[in-house]
């Protein structure tokens, strides 16, 4: 069922002007239909990060993606072209705007030191350096080159990696490549549970 | 009235009257009678104030397309709507006090019934003076008083229903209240035109009774002869004749200031 609403709506011509008498003025009546909030927004096609139906979504951001403007999300809606969801979204997908624009987001690297009762801020560089040192130490301490029977196993058993459900293929590939190269055996993902 | 038979209402009114009499004062010149004490006058004008506030905010709700121009005085339509019930409550409350204050003089008597039967003569002006048994209030005033009392009851009941709304009382009570509230308002509106007319240009000399609290003796024996007789102990008819004689004997009208 398809009918051209646009055509019929466009076909409308407003005849007669509003008149004003005794405070009776139609102008506000017509002005009340607010302007479409996405009429000047940019569209980005993406995929909903929740379940595995993979609904196509359109993220509407303010502005035209010009270099000097930092886009703000104003609305997220289903992508009508997407063959599976055809523009529909569930209650989680419909609220994605709040997931993108959420004041609970983590905004800076933090560290919790041994015995500490609070987080402290840390620079990215410092965090990277400390983590790399710990990774190396753990690997060197726990690396098993051969097993009891003398067979080469090259395992790093002191360290585990757990990947999340919205990690992309490309990220997962990098994770598998880097972790397996470190010898990590405990490599698991939301996919397991 | 002996204290032993006075009601608590009267005691309250007496206390209030005394208190207001201390706060304000009423000057009664020679040839005048005290008509309304301070308490009564304050109540009257409080009632009047709330009445008009409620009326004007009510207009904005009753027929906004006609009376929309009232609403800016009250901060716009929604604020008019918000304030209207408070004004209404103020009106009902103040009028309630006035009703208590006037309860006794407003009691209907046989004289009032006679007055009503004779109303044509009064309205047409054929009867220059009210009937001799017309007391502090005449029957017309009493009718209006009791109309307002009844109106207030209707306002209060329907107003509360409308105030709380359909979510509390249900749709039908609101729909009914809406009509009754309006009818009550319209009757009162009609009455208020007559009241204003008669208290100003319709019966000159009346207005000052609510301003200064005093009226001329002539006014009193003309419109409320029984009351005149009660407060002065003199016969209104005789005094009127006396005054007429005096007037006719001089070229000037009797001094009454």
């Amino acid at each position, binding site marked *: 069922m398809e009918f051209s609403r646009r055509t019929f709506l466009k076909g409308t011509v407003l005849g007669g002007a509003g008149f004003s008498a005794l405070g009776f003025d139609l102008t506000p009546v017509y002005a009340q239909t607010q302007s479409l909030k996405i009429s000047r927004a940019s569209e980005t096609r993406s995929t909903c990060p929740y379940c595995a139906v993979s609904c196509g979504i359109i993220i509407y951001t303010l502005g035209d993606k010009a270099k000097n403007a930092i886009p703000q999300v104003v609305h997220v809606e289903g992508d009508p072209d997407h*063959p599976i969801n055809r523009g529909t979204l569930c209650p989680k997908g419909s609220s994605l705007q709040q997931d993108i624009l959420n004041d609970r*987001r*983590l905004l800076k690297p933090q560290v919790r030191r*041994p015995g500490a009762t609070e987080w402290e801020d840390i620079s990215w560089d410092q965090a990277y350096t400390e983590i790399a040192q710990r990774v190396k130490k753990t690997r060197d301490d726990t690396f098993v080159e051969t097993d009891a029977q003398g067979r080469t196993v090259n395992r790093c058993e002191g360290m585990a990696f757990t990947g999340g459900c919205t990690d992309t293929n490309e990220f997962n590939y990098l*994770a598998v490549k880097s972790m397996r190269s470190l010898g990590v055996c405990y490599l698991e993902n939301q*996919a397991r549970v | 009235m002996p204290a032993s038979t006075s009601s608590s209402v009267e005691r309250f009114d007496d206390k209030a009257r005394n208190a207001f009499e201390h706060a304000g004062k009423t000057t009664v010149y020679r040839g005048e009678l005290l008509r309304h004490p301070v308490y009564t006058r304050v109540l009257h004008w409080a009632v009047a104030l709330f009445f008009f506030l409620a009326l004007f905010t009510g207009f904005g709700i009753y027929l906004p397309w006609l009376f929309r121009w009232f609403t800016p005085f009250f901060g716009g339509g929604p604020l008019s709507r918000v304030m209207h019930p408070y004004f209404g409550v103020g009106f009902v409350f103040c009028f309630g006090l006035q009703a208590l204050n006037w309860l006794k003089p407003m009691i209907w008597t046989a004289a009032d019934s006679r007055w009503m039967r004779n109303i044509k003569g009064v309205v047409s002006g054929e009867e220059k003076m009210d009937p001799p048994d017309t007391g502090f209030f005449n029957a017309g005033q009493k009718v209006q008083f009791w109309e307002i009392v009844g109106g207030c009851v209707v306002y209060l009941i329907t107003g509360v229903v409308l105030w709380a709304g359909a979510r509390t009382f249900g749709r039908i009570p609101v729909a009914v209240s809406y009509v009754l509230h309006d009818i009550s308002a319209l009757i009162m509106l009609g009455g208020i035109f007559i009241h204003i007319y008669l208290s100003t240009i319709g019966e000159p000399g009346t207005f000052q009774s609510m301003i200064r609290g005093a009226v001329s003796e002539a006014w009193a024996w003309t419109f409320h002869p029984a009351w005149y007789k009660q407060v002065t102990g003199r016969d209104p008819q005789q005094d009127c004749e006396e005054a007429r004689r005096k007037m006719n004997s001089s070229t000037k009208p009797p001094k009454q200031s």
Partner: protein
Amino acid sequence: MTNGWIDIKNTDMMLIMGGNPAENHPCGFKWAIEAKIHRNAKTIVVDPRLTRTAANADMYVQIRAGADIAFLGGVIKYAIENNRIAKDYLVNYTNAAFIIKDGFSLPEDGLFSGFDAEKKVYDKKTWNYEEGGDLAGKPVVATPADKPTPPLAPGATPPAPALPPNIAFDLSLQHPRCVYQLLKKQYERYTPEMVERITGIPQDQFLKAADLFTSVRKDGDMKKVATIIYAVGWTQHSFGTQIIRTAAMLQLLLGNVGRAGGGVNALRGHSNIQGATDMAGIFDILPGYLKMPNPTDVDLAAYLKRTTPLVAKPDPWESFNYWSNTSKFAVSLLKAFYGPAATKENDFAFNYLPKIDRNYSWVNIWNDMYEGKVKGLFAFGMNGVMIGPDSNKNIDALKKADWLVVCEIYPDETSEFWRAPGITAEDQKKINTTVYRLPGAGFAEKDGTFVNSARWLQWKNIALPPPGQARLDQEILATIFLKVRELYKKEGGKFPDPVLNATFAYTNPHNPLLAEVAREINGKALADITDPKTNITIKAGQQLPGFAWLKDDGTTISGNWLYCGSWTEAGAMMQRRGTDDPSGLGIYPNWGWSWPANRRVLYNRASCDMEGKPWDPSRRQVWWDDAKQSWVGVDVPDFKVDSAPKDHMGPFIMNPDGIGRLFVPLSGMQDGPFPEFYEPIESPLANLLHPKQSNNPVVKKYKTDMDKYAKTGDTEFNIICTTYRLTEHYHYWTKNNPMNVELVPEPFVEVPAELADRMGIRGGEKVKVTSARAYYIAKAMVTRRIRPMKIDGKETFQIGIPIHWGFRGIVEDEGKTAKTLANQLTPTVIDPNAFTPEFKGFLVKIEKV
């Protein structure tokens, strides 16, 4: 999913069980509704709760959590007895006619043949096909026992038993040891009476459901199709894989696999866990489902020999045995990982990969961390404390770790395990774990590919940059790895070669463009390669058009052979947005890209009869074109395209036997070639089929002091509990999202009205649910949607707990909840095949707070 989301609209009958798609996959469920509206399709929902899926069903049956195999086994029995089976399909496309070795025995006492009670493992050598030809009509003779094996060198492992290349068969299905007869015998015990006693489903309801579902195959008519839809309600059991197998067997019996509107459809619960599985984000595989090397693989050749199956089939038949290409996939992967460092001489750096011989799965991470073996943990968007099972154990495990790196977008329970409720400031001072919490990027701030449940790869675009100091996850991961590499370069250390040689040859190695990574995953030619048949040449450096081009000589790379074809010279196939669907079957061949080879319905050869004609011409997917001597169709044939029907090649080309397996031979399954009903580890009663072997015999309990389990028939813990998600929330994520919090603000426990009456609990009152491990406090939702059940004649109650609340979130931070976690209740016990924890069907007690 063997099929796809849209394909559900082509079905005539849906059995939805172990899943709640209306709540957890609403947009996918639309296609079930479409089937209802446009095909008058019927829906049967079997679930412990009357869910929102059940509310829409034509028939709802309440089942005891964990009794699924009993129900499905009963349906198999019903189908066989009432001739509701697809005879031709069964004989030709499954191993129904194959003869099983003498010595194999069915689990009438709860155990299949070959059980080693001490090690709790099966010796599976009898779980194999008999060798020989057509045994139809031949007298049944006992075959001699296995030939004596030559003595082994000390220390050497005996060669694993293999499938016979020439499988014995009986197409009349009469041979007493043919799979069909064994199957019939196996499920003879699953009578409607037994089903009622085990599952709690009254016989009349069960029979009605069995009749309705199998009605698609009334009198063997093949036109209609039924689908089975499930999710983790099946997976999360100590016999989860076997439930799914029972469903697959039922579908093979009814001839529903490979057909539009049919199949066995796993609804995956997260946006890219299908991709994570494909990409081997799990310990036991390498990308593209290549097996992980084990210590017996002394070199690449040994590994390939072990992991490359040989064709095993009845002589007159053919088998494609696609895994025979394993070497090409494996070498291309090693070349992708290690580039120039992977040479023929060093076995393509095969030894760079760790060799594993034990279980490193999810619960073992926590168990072994608890035991002090795992010192450090990376959690990239993975909230292990919330996920559990036995969250308290996970919290205590983290206390023992040296370091934890969490990359997240919200403050989560895992990164704040050290201040979980109940841990005082004094306690915190004793926790020596260093926790780094790195702000990652949300989905809208990253590009890259997700793979949906229907195996579609779809690229998403960047809408805006990450907020604050947050960084892209790939940048964080790559930078850490490259920093480690620098340290190894500078300081040396244990076996630095793989760390130094893993390729990070991206334009900016510290922040790889995901498009570059995607191209690497697809793979390219390192030298000019020519296909001798078509004479087409792929030039060195060019993207490969598909996995058929992969080589095992080091001239191709591919990070995941399954995805080869996703980003070709023609461009990014997973970015395609073609909205044409000429067949009307919902195939959309030009939208995104589906593995393998852009096939939308797996095993689609099975949608045709023996002559290659579609079973239902109105829903034809692929068919044999005699003129072209080729398989053609609206979908990409999942088959050798030039294999004529007369060759009788099996449609299940990934199996060396080429057929759908009613019986899984050898090491395919750890706990039996046929599914057998076992009770969950925590169960209110002993298994009615074999009380002495109540649970899955190969499942092991964990042994730390944290691991406590309720006894079978426990008098204290006597209520069955199941966990689930709500449609309004997404795991532990949307508790940070005001709108979703508004929809369902607080944790609750669904309690049957009868149980609530008995306990004096009213709706909205707080209740405490206690398992052998911990307690959980939430408000009661008293409902008539869960009814008391009669299990073996005894009144039994079930309750349900949604999992979404933790100790960090909008309402949690406002102090409106008890801050207990649903998974504090769940037991540490896993399915022996998929290693998934048993989150469903454990025992609890309930009381008013």
